[in-house]
């Protein structure tokens, strides 16, 4: 059985950019008019030629999102389990060479953090780690899942890429979804930003969703870290990846996230800027490409941006997130992976959603069926 790499390797980065930038107004109008849209339409919709049509894209994106998801927004909360990491990632506060105190939560600490998150109403949780296979390997993650599975309806992880049988083991322990962002689909730039550690293996990361699909995971989250490379090309490859996975692992659900580089303790400046209108255009383009895919936005984005984007295609958001292990209650003062932007408490976010006629969904899964 093949993998995404086989398809990916037939594409060329520069030609992809050229193809996106050569899209015309005519292509955009056709993409807007089509009821089914393909990847060429997607290219047109993320191209500069589509920027005059942003409002129309937003209206369509809103309509499609309401049709499929109704007037709802799913809430989730991230929980950092560890900031130990053997990778060097130029943009990350947890990067191995950063001289920061390292912490991996103990069982007691995990439960303390969980109690805080539960008290805010969350039933969907995202567990995050760095990559430190000796101390925070599969067994550590497995233990964490078993420790908290009775308290959450839905557990997602964002950790180092694992092997198929390791994912199978974690699914047994209550794992629902895995987020694995390629960061950038530009092979050489990827290498520059990940010079050391297991993460420097581009192909191993690229084929992680395949291993997840084969393991029978319920949901896979994709994305690129915007700022490393041209956001349009990275988004095209994310969409290509998504379409491939949907066709191959048809029992799995998919989500796409839109992380933009945020300041952290190292302070890498984005190489390629992605503006707010760019990000709105991209979110709408993903919705126009796919009516069913979940689109997620985190607290990296600003208040005003989040207040508006929840009406334009986004289906799930986090709030009041802490990006340091123990950040909620155990060690609130420790160093964060990155600074969040929207710091409003959960109650304020849910009030904002309700005032816009959106129902706040806390629980949308039952993890005791299997």
């Amino acid at each position, binding site marked *: 059985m093949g993998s995404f790499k086989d398809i990916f390797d037939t594409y060329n980065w520069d030609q992809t950019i050229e193809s996106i930038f050569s899209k015309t107004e005519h292509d955009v109008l056709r993409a807007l*008019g*089509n009821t089914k849209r393909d990847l060429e339409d997607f290219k047109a919709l993320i191209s500069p030629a589509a920027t005059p049509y942003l409002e129309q894209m*937003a209206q369509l994106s*809103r309509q499609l999102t309401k049709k499929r998801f109704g007037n709802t927004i799913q809430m989730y909360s991230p929980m950092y389990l560890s900031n130990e990491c053997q990778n060097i990632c130029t943009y990350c506060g947890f990067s191995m060479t950063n001289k920061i105190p390292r912490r991996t939560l103990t069982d007691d600490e995990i439960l303390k953090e969980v109690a805080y998150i539960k008290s805010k109403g969350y039933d969907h949780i995202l567990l995050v780690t760095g990559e430190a296979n000796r101390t925070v390997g599969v067994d550590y993650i497995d233990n964490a899942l078993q420790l908290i599975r009775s308290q959450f309806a839905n557990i997602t992880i964002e950790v180092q890429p694992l092997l198929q049988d390791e994912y199978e083991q974690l699914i047994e322990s209550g794992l629902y979804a895995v987020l694995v962002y390629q960061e950038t689909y530009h092979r050489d730039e990827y290498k520059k930003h990940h010079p050391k550690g297991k993460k420097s293996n581009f192909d191993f990361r690229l084929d992680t969703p395949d291993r997840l699909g084969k393991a029978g995971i319920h949901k896979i989250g994709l994305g690129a870290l915007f700022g490393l490379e041209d956001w349009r090309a990275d988004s095209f490859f994310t969409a290509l990846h998504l379409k491939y996975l*949907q066709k191959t692992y048809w029992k799995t659900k998919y989500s796409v996230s839109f992380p933009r580089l945020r300041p952290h303790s190292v302070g890498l400046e984005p190489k390629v800027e992605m503006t707010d209108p760019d990000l709105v255009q991209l979110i709408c383009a993903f919705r126009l490409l796919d009516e069913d895919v979940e689109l997620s936005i985190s607290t990296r984005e600003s208040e005003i*941006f989040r207040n508006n984007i929840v009406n334009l295609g986004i289906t799930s958001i986090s709030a009041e997130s802490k990006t340091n292990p123990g950040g909620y209650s155990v060690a609130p003062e420790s160093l964060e992976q990155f600074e969040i932007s929207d710091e409003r408490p959960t109650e304020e976010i849910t009030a904002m959603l309700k005032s816009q006629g959106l129902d706040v969904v806390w629980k949308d899964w039952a993890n005791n069926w299997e």
Partner: protein
Amino acid sequence: MEVHLTSSVGYPKKKENNMFQIADKKFNSRLFTGTGKFSSSIVMKEAILASESELVTVALKRVDVEDSQDDILRHLDHAHINLLPNTSGVRTAKEAVFAAQLSREALETNWVKLEIHPDPKYLLPDPIETLKAAEELVKLGFVVMPYIHADPVLCKRLEEVGTQCVMPLGAPIGSNKGLKTQEFLEIIIDQSNVPVIVDAGIGAPSHAAYAMELGADAVLVNTAIAVSQNPVEMGKAFKMAVAAGRLAYEAKLAPVVHKKAEASSPLTSFLN
């Protein structure tokens, strides 16, 4: 008829690799035909030749595979025509596997159109027996082309056991009613990793063209040609319709113009 576009007026040239492939076989024509219901074997032959179809299904129950001079088989003896034996008449997976093995031996082809319809009235395919037989036949080395309901999940299950294509129906076989299952065909076409051949129900060239415009890889037409007043002309008509539909699909249809959505307050003004 090959449809050639004149490059001198700026249209794209006809694609070189417009052929399509099932297993190891390449086809110039995306029209597959059948051999039933014709008024004579001669008319059948003329109609199939006029249609330029390269894959022609034959009901095993209709031919005497022991007889090299069998009337139907004899008339199909042309270099460009590939025979596709079908298992019409069997009611279970077990019978289908048996029939397929007999046909492989006698007709020297490992291709089989898997048809299991226990119901003699509407001839609707049994999904459970079909999946079972498909799995078995793939293991036995057959190129399996299963005739099924337009059931997207079944199509994925068949793909997983290794069928080389799927053949969902447009409407009950022989009904000539067209693409009654359109919604489901569209899902199947959208999801499939193997060729999708719309089989059964296609009653007019316009139906065939429409199936091709939706993105079907091929269509199989029998009754509509065989029972026409003039099967030879109808064979030609289907050939043209299938070619036109495919060309339109590749050229990409112009979008349908929708009425303006109801005006709502601007959603992107916060960006200013």
